């Protein structure tokens, strides 16, 4: 008798979620097996990369290696986003509205939303708008963004239990996708999706953000929770967790001490640029293996590496 490898039986599948509109719209999810286990099921859509753009010049918040490729556009978020698409082939943009942070610049919501609108209009790829995780401010900003970019199928993040009603309602009213964000806990991830469902948000308008820890800074906690979400969705048929997952990686990796140390400060850690890029790439690949559908990345070199990895895994 010929050898028959054991195969996992799946009782569920990840639902598909589409971001953006027109020819460059992106659909993620649809997987009926564990990540890249195409010998057991189908994976109709490859995981995607969103390139990170800030709505303000990040200045010293970014290590030199991260600023260098964008030196000519750091003051102009729309030009920056365009460069990501036209020069680096970004399939999606993740715009971080850092200028809204009440503990820093605290730019008024109207101004923040106007910049978001400019970026959205400047590119033809889907845009994820990532707030500052301050409920009051995010509600204010996202309400304006949702309205002014009506029908663009943006993804609005992070939507937490404390602001899900307000931002969820804005998404429903203007046709955007909710990024449901919970603090590294599978039960809370499920609960938030239940609450969004009670509110009336359709299941295929939800992405899960499990909260992302960078390599060396909690990666393994995020990884475990993603595995549990994926197992619940696929092996237990848990409908409330059968959504694609997004990881906001760039911002977590590049703020670590090791990503910012110069060659003089940490000679034993090697070339600072390559070091940070590798940290970002390793974090991204780990999460792709745990079931990520969208990874948000900062450096063009990381994007190239991870894109190559995805192509090989999908071949």
């Amino acid at each position, binding site marked *: 008798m010929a050898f028959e490898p054991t195969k996992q039986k799946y009782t569920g599948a990840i639902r598909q979620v589409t971001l953006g509109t027109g020819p460059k719209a992106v659909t993620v999810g649809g997987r009926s097996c564990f990540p890249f286990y195409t010998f057991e099921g189908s994976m109709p859509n490859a995981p995607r990369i969103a390139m990170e753009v800030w709505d303000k010049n990040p200045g010293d918040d970014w290590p030199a290696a991260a600023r260098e490729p964008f030196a000519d556009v750091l003051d102009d978020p729309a030009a920056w986003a365009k460069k990501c698409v036209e020069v680096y082939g970004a399939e999606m943009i993740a715009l971080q509205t850092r200028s809204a942070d009440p503990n820093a610049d605290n730019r008024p919501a109207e101004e923040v939303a106007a910049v978001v609108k400019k970026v959205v209009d400047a590119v033809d790829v889907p845009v994820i708008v990532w707030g500052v995780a301050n409920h009051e401010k995010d509600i204010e900003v996202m309400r304006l963004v949702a309205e002014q970019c009506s029908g663009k199928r943006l993804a609005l993040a992070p939507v937490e239990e404390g602001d899900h009603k307000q931002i969820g309602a804005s998404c429903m009213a203007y046709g955007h996708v909710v990024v449901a964000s919970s603090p590294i806990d599978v*039960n809370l991830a*499920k609960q938030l999706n239940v609450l969004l469902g009670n509110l009336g948000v359709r299941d295929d308008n939800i992405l899960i953000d499990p909260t992302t820890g960078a390599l060396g800074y909690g990666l393994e906690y995020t990884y475990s929770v993603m595995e549990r979400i994926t197992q619940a969705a696929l092996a237990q048929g848990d409908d409330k967790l059968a959504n694609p997952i997004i990881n906001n990686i760039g911002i977590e990796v590049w703020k670590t001490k090791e990503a910012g140390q110069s060659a003089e400060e940490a000679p034993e850690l090697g070339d600072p640029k390559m070091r940070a890029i590798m940290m970002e790439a390793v974090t991204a690949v780990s999460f792709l293996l745990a079931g990520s559908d969208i990874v948000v990345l900062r450096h063009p070199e990381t994007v190239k590496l991870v894109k190559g990895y995805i192509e090989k895994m999908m071949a």
Partner: protein
Amino acid sequence: MKLIGENLNIVSKKYGKALKERDAKTLQELAIQMAEAGMDYIDLNIGPAGKYGEELMSWLVPVIHEVVDLPLALDTSNIKAIAAGLKAHKKGRAMINSIMVRPERMEALLPLAKEYDAEFVGLLWGPEGMPRDENERGALCAELLFRATEQGIAPERIYIDPIQTPVNVQQSQIMSALAFMKMFPDIAPGCSSTIGLSNVSNGAPDHLRPILNRVMLIIWKRWGMQSAIVDCFDKELHAIARGQRPELEALVHKVEDGEPIDMSSLTKEEQDYVKTARVILGYTLYSDSWLEL
């Protein structure tokens, strides 16, 4: 099943305050309520209690025994307070809650259990903390029994506690603790068992805690659990413990056995029992809205 009332507890707002203020009347009222609810023991949880533990326990035991005759479970990590409680305990046989499977705890507390001929809860918490699975629980249990036997303590004095974890944190640990119950009679012949039941619902919304506790108790009961530390105000839970809800027990057993269940033929209460059993047993993932799904 024997029931140990848990409500006289330092973390309770009302009774914690009464303990701190040495308010005998409030505590005695609770003790009488516990006796009326049919508790077999009253747990006296005074917390670690620092340097006041000895004095507090010496005061508390006679205060409670002034109004009830129930045996008392001395619940503190404070060894001096345990010794003081044992000394003050004149009605029936006291219980030490608990003795962990850590050398320093066993060395200090097992001789006290022997000296006062007390019962004790043997908590399967080892030198490295919480056991990871049923086998580690088995090893800790064997270690504790060996030490107790060395001291000449009879098995009927010992209540092994395999540790209840919350369903929303470590559901898989519930399964390990249940699996341990299967090997328990062979590892510990003649010993009893007990469980800190309410921890299963720790972190769940307050109004939903009782059904988690009740379904968990049904499951423990089927696996041979002989007693539980429980909420003395949950009458329905007590009825289950006394075998007065056989239809609900049968329903939970059906879930456990994977039998098909026609939800539409069930009352709302029965449906809630089925959904809760599924969550506790890990068939579906817990979320605070589990009864609405």
